[in-house]
């Protein structure tokens, strides 16, 4: 009778009716700041790119890491600094409002063309002023032509690799078959050791670097040619961020001078004091710690393009000592701490991770961002790590449900009941937070890959669903995204694809209609599958050798124990003692498994259809063949805890696992299978015709390790069990797996609903699944928002390891979300 909408939906309805948000009064400052930029189209700010380019022009020939440090110093000294009205924390990389930065070192070769398209793009559009567009076209882009990583990579791929990677000779458009992703970001999602900065400050790191320079052997070639410039770069980059911070102190004092409101004046003077202190010196209190962290991550965002933004790490752990001490000293209470953190959140919300390339844009729709704040989990000693701050983060998400920052809750077998219940309550709120990462899967896996227990227990969630050990991880490249549904299409067309006509893309595995047995078909599939794997691994080999020639990150290296120890930039392919955790991506897992299942069952076992009939129906996009389509859909599907489909899923997973196991060594890394598509299952679907699971041509593939749209019919418990069944637990060669589940609010109603959600989460933990996230929403709300986007501007939905405004998504992705099965109960 009651509760048919989530609290998030209720607040949207309130807003439509013109009611004030129920939490506005208790969070006045941040709501006010939010209103200054909420819903604005992001603007491109060119300053970072301009100063970076200016400096790089001056330093050609020097060691790359040193050049990068000098460029950052040039940026720090010249870029406009801002103090946001009302905010207590400062540090932004661009103009007021929502803004994005340019990284011409990545895509300078086609930046001038792209800049014309960006405002009109369907997926994640950006605006740029006329003057700034001129700067890009005349000052920035010309320098980078012929120098970018992207061009070098395009030239370096062997022909057979290029053929499955790009649509055009210049490598500007992806084929979405075996898609490299190393060229639209300098680093994959990453986490810094913020605790180090809070404890030692960049002043401390600078001192360490200077001492190391002193201790170098003055006669050693390595010490002088390799290590010395690296350490000099560290010194310069430490100076750069300190300079940048102090410029904020100066500005804050100027503003204070002009300020007439005594309250704001005092705030500005306090901010000036804080910015003079951190991040150079250790933080002494909670405010300094928050500001120091923010300067660090914000400057890191200017250093390089970390894929969908550098993460926040274990915030409830490294901020806790400052919080506790301040509370005990009586200089901070819960509300003040919350306000400071939320000042940080609105800062994060204004930085938009801009993807210039169309491929990058399609990968990360809705202005994707994964600045994951990790909460909960275990201490390095393996004890439960939950503390008062943990609960404060959850509270903030319920009361100020901005979709920044991304919140990730670590779950382990002894997570306290209060914590899991609070997590469940927050999920029920309905804005998609937090996502859950499972210690019981991540920790043993990382130990098996060479980490110590201490390091593994201390992992931080990074990006979408990944986990990082900030002082042990050393692999920074994006991996291949592989469209295995295209591999199936190639089996059905003897190595060709519908979209590409007569072009022989894959192997000639023979006329499919002549396969007499399932084994024959499966063998052909494996051949195409392995061709894709081979292509992906060849890509990665080239990538690994090429990247360090184009990317450096002195600041990231300054914060990394192993880089400092060995005097090597973090982008160096092999860093002694480092663990290289890379991945390749399986696209369309559910789509593929269900299609294979349909062929196996209906063609080779029940003989209700022939392969020729299926191919004809698929090629014609089931036009006039709805009966064939419906029949295909009666086959067992992944996501129903059905051993028939799940065993096929496990065998497919095994192909990936064993290939990685065999050939990763040659790449000097763990190149392991991952199931995390961001939003790319939509563009990957656009290159594949209709499939034997009844999916129509050019529509989205299934996402991550989730079931195909609507194929999971036996409820959410089965979805988890299928996920478990399809894993090869006997091998370590696997990385993250993303799993989306959609519930209706009704299903989680009341205290009983919370208890059942807790039990569901506990079982997820028992099953040793990697990740799960929830949308708790009514389908009617999504449909209403699609119809009337203006009214539903604030509707937040869970996409793929991040939450975004529903109205910011392309129609394709909106439909994809609507089509996901919503679990109710009878």
């Amino acid at each position, binding site marked *: *009778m009651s509760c048919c909408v989530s609290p998030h939906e209720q607040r949207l309805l309130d807003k439509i009716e013109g009611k004030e948000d129920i939490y506005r009064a208790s969070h006045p400052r941040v709501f006010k700041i939010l209103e200054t930029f909420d819903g604005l189209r992001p603007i491109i700010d060119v300053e970072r790119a301009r100063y970076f380019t200016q400096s790089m022009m001056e330093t050609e020939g020097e060691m790359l890491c040193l050049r990068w440090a000098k460029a950052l110093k040039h940026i720090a000294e010249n870029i406009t600094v801002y103090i946001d009205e009302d905010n207590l924390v400062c540090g932004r990389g661009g103009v007021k409002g929502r803004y994005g930065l340019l990284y011409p070192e990545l895509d300078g070769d086609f930046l001038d063309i792209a800049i014309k398209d960006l405002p009109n793009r369907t997926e994640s559009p950006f605006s740029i002023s006329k003057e700034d567009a001129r700067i890009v076209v005349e000052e920035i882009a010309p320098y980078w032509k012929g120098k970018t990583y992207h061009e070098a990579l395009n030239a370096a791929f062997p022909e057979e690799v290029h053929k499955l990677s790009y649509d055009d000779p210049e490598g500007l458009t992806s084929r979405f078959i075996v898609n490299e992703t190393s060229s639209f970001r300098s680093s994959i999602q990453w986490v810094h050791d913020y605790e180090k900065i809070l404890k030692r400050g960049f002043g401390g790191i600078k001192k360490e670097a200077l001492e190391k320079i002193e201790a170098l052997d003055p006669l050693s070639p390595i010490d002088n040619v390799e290590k010395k410039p690296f350490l000099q770069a560290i010194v310069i980059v430490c100076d750069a961020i300190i300079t940048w911070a102090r410029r904020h102190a100066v500005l804050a004092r100027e503003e204070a001078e002009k300020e007439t409101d005594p309250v704001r004046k005092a705030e500005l003077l306090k901010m000036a004091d804080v910015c003079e202190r951190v991040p150079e010196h250790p933080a002494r209190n909670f405010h300094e710690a928050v500001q120091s962290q923010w300067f660090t991550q914000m400057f890191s965002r200017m250093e390089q393009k970390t894929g969908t933004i550098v993460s926040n790490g274990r915030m409830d752990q490294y901020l806790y000592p400052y919080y506790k001490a301040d509370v005990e000293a009586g200089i901070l209470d819960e509300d003040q701490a919350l306000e400071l953190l939320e000042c940080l959140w609105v800062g994060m919300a204004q930085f938009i991770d801009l993807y210039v390339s169309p491929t990058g844009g399609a990968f990360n729709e809705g202005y994707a961002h994964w600045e994951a704040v990790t909460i909960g989990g275990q201490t390095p000693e393996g004890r439960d790590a939950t503390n008062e701050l943990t609960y404060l983060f959850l509270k903030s998400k319920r009361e100020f449900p901005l979709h920044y920052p991304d919140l990730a809750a670590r779950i382990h077998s002894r997570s306290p009941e209060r914590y899991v219940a609070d997590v469940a309550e927050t999920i029920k709120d309905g804005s998609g937070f937090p996502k859950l990462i499972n210690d019981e899967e991540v920790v043993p896996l990382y130990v098996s890959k060479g980490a110590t227990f201490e390091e593994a227990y201390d992992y931080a969630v990074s990006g979408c669903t990944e986990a990082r050990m900030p002082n042990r991880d050393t692999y920074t490249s994006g991996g291949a995204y592989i469209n295995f549904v295209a591999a199936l299409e190639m089996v059905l067309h003897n190595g060709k694809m519908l979209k590409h006509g007569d072009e022989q893309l894959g192997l000639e595995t023979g006329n499919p209609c002549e396969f007499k047995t399932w084994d024959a078909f499966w063998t052909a599939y494996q051949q195409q599958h392995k061709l894709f794997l081979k292509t992906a691994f060849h890509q990665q080999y080239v990538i690994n050798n090429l990247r360090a020639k184009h990317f450096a990150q002195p600041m990231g290296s300054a914060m990394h124990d192993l880089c400092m120890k060995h005097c090597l930039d973090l982008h160096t392919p092999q860093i002694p003692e480092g663990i290289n955790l890379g991945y390749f991506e399986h696209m369309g897992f559910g789509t593929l498994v269900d299609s294979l299942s349909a062929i196996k069952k209906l063609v080779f076992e029940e003989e209700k259809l022939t392969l020729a009939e299926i191919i004809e129906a698929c090629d014609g996009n089931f036009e*006039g*063949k*709805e*009966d*064939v389509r*419906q*029949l295909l*859909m*009666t086959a067992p599907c992944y996501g129903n*805890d059905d051993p028939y489909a799940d065993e096929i899923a496990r065998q497919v997973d095994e192909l990936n696992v064993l290939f990685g196991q065999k050939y990763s060594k040659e790449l000097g890394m763990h190149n392991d299978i991952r199931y995390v598509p961001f939003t790319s299952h939509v563009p990957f679907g656009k290159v594949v015709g209709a499939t034997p699971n009844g999916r129509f041509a050019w529509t989205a593939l299934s996402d991550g390790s989730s079931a195909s749209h609507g194929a999971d019919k*036996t*409820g*959410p*418990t*089965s979805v988890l*069990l299928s996920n478990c069944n399809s894993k090869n637990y006997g091998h370590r060669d696997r990385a993250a797996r993303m799993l989306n589940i959609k519930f209706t609010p009704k*299903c989680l109603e009341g205290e*009983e*609903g919370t*208890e*059942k959600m807790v*039990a*569901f989460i*506990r*079982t997820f933990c*028992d*099953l040793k699944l990697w990740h799960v996230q929830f949308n708790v929403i009514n389908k009617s709300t999504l449909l209403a928002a699609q119809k009337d986007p203006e009214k539903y501007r604030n509707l937040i939905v869970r996409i793929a390891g991040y939450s975004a405004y529903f109205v910011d998504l392309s129609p394709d992705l909106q439909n994809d979300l609507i089509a996901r099965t919503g*679990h109710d*109960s*009878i």
Partner: protein
Amino acid sequence: MTNKEIQNTTGTVFNIQKYSVHDGPGIRTVVFLKGCPLSCMWCSNPESQSFKPQLAYNSNKCISLAECVRCAEVCTAGALIQGEGDKIHVNWDTCTNCLCCADSCPSGALITYGDKQAVRDVIDQVEKDAAFYARSGGGMTLGGGEPLAQPEFALALLKEAKRRYIKTAVETCGHVSTEALLEACKYLNMMMFDIKSMDSEKHKEFTQVGNERILENLKAVRQAFPKLHIRVRTPVIPGFNDTTEDIQAIVDFLKAYDVEYELLPYHRLGTQKYTNLGLGYPLGDTSLENDAFLPLLEIAGQIGFSK
């Protein structure tokens, strides 16, 4: 009976519903047994009433005769004819319920409700979610229809579940053999027992049976199993038992027993299924308003458990 005999016992099941969160504690799987001694006018599972497998037709799922005539090709009784919108129409008068058409239908427009299943296979399905039962205190619920109207099968299911350490519950209308009911209680963690009205005549008018046996059975169960967790439930149906007097009478009766009590508000979710079975909806157009329901909740609260 030996374990093997128990496992081989068969009965008619029309649905196995996983992740059921409103039919007893925790996360549960409900096994719906087909056939019921009552014919309640508001029944939301009309497909559960007959003991036999039966055909149902959902025209929304029918593809269109232009693309598919598989069903008509197998129908020997000539019961499938062209209907509106180029879709099949079932002539229920001529249909012999041979069920061949359901086997041939690719889209699930024509389906069979109910099939014979062995205890082993049913419990295998139920046991799949054991990891969730362990964490939530859930388990298996037998529902229906009236599960104890297939007493041998229901008992075998309960015994086999117990043997595999699966917690059990049953949802019963109470109008069953006392012997079977008491035997079932030996293997139950919880019983959900419907009492629909204290007025036997009205009971008969709306359900086709009086309430005497039902009330006697509750008494018998409580006497023989004083500690069994019992939740009595009353579906609140407009025009039948939605007055405060109706509910007060039930509450007064229940005060002598140590039971939980829950009111289930009337809903119309089952109406489509009547159409699919070629039946009319007996209760017609009616609805339960909050104003009528909320005072009843308060009365129900007198015995400690309300919802």
